[in-house]
């Protein structure tokens, strides 16, 4: 058993030899954690994700996935451990029906035909898409397409899933659906979730945050530890959660509250403060 799902040491990569897109990056992602990866556009977040999957070839450094070094030789085995869900729901639907789409990955991994239907149905049910198994992609909403992408990744029994802004092109209903689904999947902590996101509330609820800036790791820590560095966050044009903005505004008025991130508890705390007086 490894305690880290992912270990990255000294990772570097360039698209253009004159610019280092990823510049000597090192970090660990604990097994079973929900880690968010944040940073300004162009900071290198998605490039890191692609390097972890072996979709891009690193120039330097080491990547270890679930205890296994990522090399060209064991790429296939690595891809059995880590999967990715991309941003655009229209760019990752391969099959002509939901069933075919989930089957695609299984076929590639030579899952016997007689087991396949059972697996497909099980994971379609996990993402609430059973009634759409025979539907064509054009009949599905963006949120439903992303559900299918998630089912296809789950069916491969990956231990680690990377979500690369998987909800950013969805409407609010689709966003909520997918966020709730990911949370549910992570509940028993057997799955390691890495989410690249701009959604500050999702970040606030994650276990760990990795802040990427200009191809380097600027900050790593729990949400509270990261959001404490307000000046630094601002200099990287990153937002802080609403409750911390409230906290700052109250502080200016001489009212001090704790560093709690949960909105409900902050509200309770403010009320206790005011109503006690």
């Amino acid at each position, binding site marked *: 058993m490894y305690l880290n799902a992912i270990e990255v040491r000294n990772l570097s990569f360039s698209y253009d030899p004159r610019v280092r897109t990823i510049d000597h990056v090192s970090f660990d992602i604990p097994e079973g954690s929900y880690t968010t990866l944040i940073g*300004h*556009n162009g900071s290198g977040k998605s490039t890191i994700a692609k390097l972890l999957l072996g979709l891009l070839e690193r120039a330097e450094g080491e990547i270890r996935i679930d205890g296994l070094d990522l090399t060209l030789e064991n790429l296939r085995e690595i891809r059995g451990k880590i999967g990715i869900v991309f941003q655009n729901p229209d760019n990752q639907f391969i099959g002509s029906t939901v069933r075919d789409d989930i089957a695609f990955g299984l076929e590639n991994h030579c899952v016997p035909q007689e087991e396949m239907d059972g697996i497909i149905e099980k994971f379609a049910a996990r993402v609430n898409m059973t009634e759409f198994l025979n539907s064509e992609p054009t009949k599905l*909403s963006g949120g439903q397409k992303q559900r299918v992408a998630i089912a296809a990744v789950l069916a491969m029994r990956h231990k680690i899933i990377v979500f690369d802004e998987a909800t*950013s*092109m969805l*409407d*609010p*209903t*689709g966003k*909520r659906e997918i966020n709730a689904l990911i949370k549910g999947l992570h509940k028993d902590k057997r799955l390691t979730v890495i989410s690249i996101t*701009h959604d*500050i509330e999702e970040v606030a609820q994650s276990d760990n945050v990795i802040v990427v800036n200009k191809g380097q790791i600027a900050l790593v820590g729990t949400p509270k530890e990261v959001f404490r560095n307000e000046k630094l966050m601002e200099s990287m*044009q990153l*937002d802080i959660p*609403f*409750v911390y*903005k*409230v906290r700052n*505004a*109250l502080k*200016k*008025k*001489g*009212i001090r509250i704790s560093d709690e991130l949960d*909105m*409900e508890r*902050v*509200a*309770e705390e*403010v*009320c*206790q*403060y*005011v*109503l006690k*007086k």
Partner: protein
Amino acid sequence: MPIRFEKVDFEYSPGTPFAFKALKNIDLELAMGKMTAIIGATGSGKTTLVQHLNALLLPTAGKVTVLDHEIKAGQKFTQVKELRHNVGLVFQFAEYQLFEETVLKDVCFGPMNFGVSEADAIEIARRSLLTVGIPEKSFEKSPLEMSGGQKRRVAIAGILAMKPKILVLDEPTAGLDPQGAESMMELFRKVNKNSGITVLIVTHNMEHVLQYCDDVVVMEKGELLMQTDIETFFENYEYMEKANINPPAIIRFKELLKKNGLEIASDVLDIDSLASAVARRCKK
């Protein structure tokens, strides 16, 4: 001269098995000079509604009045060019529509199409580009060399260069990161306040509705559900929950304070006023 919809229906592919009524009996009047949000679930008719404003779609029943143009169902509408001069419509993912070889030429296209001389068009285009935050040094670039957010700004400059009285934006911040979206909204506010252009925005972002808009129009299944000002709209928490609308953070926070016995006035809609209101309660 306002924008008025009177008993407007719109049906896609009428008389075929695919017939679909996207707008049902819409009665709506929008005042000029304001920034109005048009919200509703995907498929509720928001885009269909705004595409009537520049006669991209014609009503299948009823009448649409925009400025002094009347568009009646079943009658040929002859003032398309004048109307489109007055009403600029920016589509979703507008950056896909750029086609000229340079940024400046792309923005000149609109005014020249409406008969402005080349020299004047260039002058107008330069000013429009500066308004949307595209620097001089980018004017001669190919639109293809620019980032997604910048391309979208160029497309918007192209519409502004036609000097419309009404600017209609269909999900102008979709797919942008939060900072990009925010500065895009600032731009529309500037256009609205400084040039007095009436702005209509189709959006899903409730934080933007709260921060930037004056009024809200809510669509549901092709019908007009509600039209009201921002303050009244965000006061009705139960309604938002029922309509599956995720209220802005400050509205959710105020609702939580209320549940814990601290009621904050409905006109408190930003963090600083909220802190002041809390501080005042402490002194009592």
